[in-house]
């Protein structure tokens, strides 16, 4: 589910915000509220950027987790990020348009359980930097790592030790 961070990021496309002028709120992965500033600040983008898999719950990128709570627009991080025991050797990102003029971004990755125990994967999310100020209209802006989508897998999967899984994660628009 797209989070309020992404919704507000989209709303800010209507207005050219000046650097260091926070507008709508966003929450970083720690739950701290900031205010979205310049959408085009270096390394901060008003769209999903090509990123890598990350085991860090506080870094930008696609993460996997074991959380089971239904996603909410108010989510600001995965419920329980898997921080060890997984590695991703192949990470592909593609974008395009479907037959109904919807725009999509598709993440595909091959995940390897490198630990000695089974790991059950239930949730996935994308975090990205958003340039945001500490107060509305404030000037103390910096890139904040913010969750823009969190989804549960249709069916969770337990990956046995040493085994692999294919993750397909698609965000798209429709009217």
């Amino acid at each position, binding site marked *: 589910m*797209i989070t309020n961070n992404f919704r507000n990021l989209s709303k800010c496309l209507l207005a050219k915000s000046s650097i260091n002028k926070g507008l709508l709120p966003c929450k970083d992965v720690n739950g701290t509220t900031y205010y979205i500033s310049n959408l085009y600040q270096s390394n901060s983008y008003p769209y999903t950027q090509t990123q890598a898999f990350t085991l860090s719950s506080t870094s930008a990128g696609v993460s996997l987790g074991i959380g089971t709570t239904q996603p909410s627009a108010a989510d600001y991080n995965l419920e329980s990020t898997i921080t060890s025991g997984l590695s991703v050797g192949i990470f592909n990102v593609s974008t395009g348009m479907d037959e109904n003029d919807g725009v999509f971004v598709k993440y595909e990755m*091959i995940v390897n359980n490198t630990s000695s125990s089974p790991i059950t994967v239930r949730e996935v999310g994308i975090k990205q930097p958003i340039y945001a100020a500490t107060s509305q209209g404030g000037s103390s802006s910096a890139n904040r790592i913010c969750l823009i989508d969190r989804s549960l897998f*249709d069916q969770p*999967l337990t990956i046995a030790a040493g085994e*692999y899984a294919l993750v397909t994660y698609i965000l798209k*628009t429709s009217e």
Partner: protein
Amino acid sequence: MAKSKAKVIVSNEQWLEDIADAVREKTQTNKSYRIDEIPEAIMSIPDVNVKYTSTATIVPYDN
């Protein structure tokens, strides 16, 4: 705006014809509107809302 019963479709004013065409296109009907109805007709056009959805699947992979 003055009330008028003249239908836009028979107007010889090009700008009115353009509006009428736009209304017909947006509402997908051939209905004619009175001049004083046009603004209301335009306002009644449903908003086009962009929806975002996400789907995630994970399946075993034979490496």
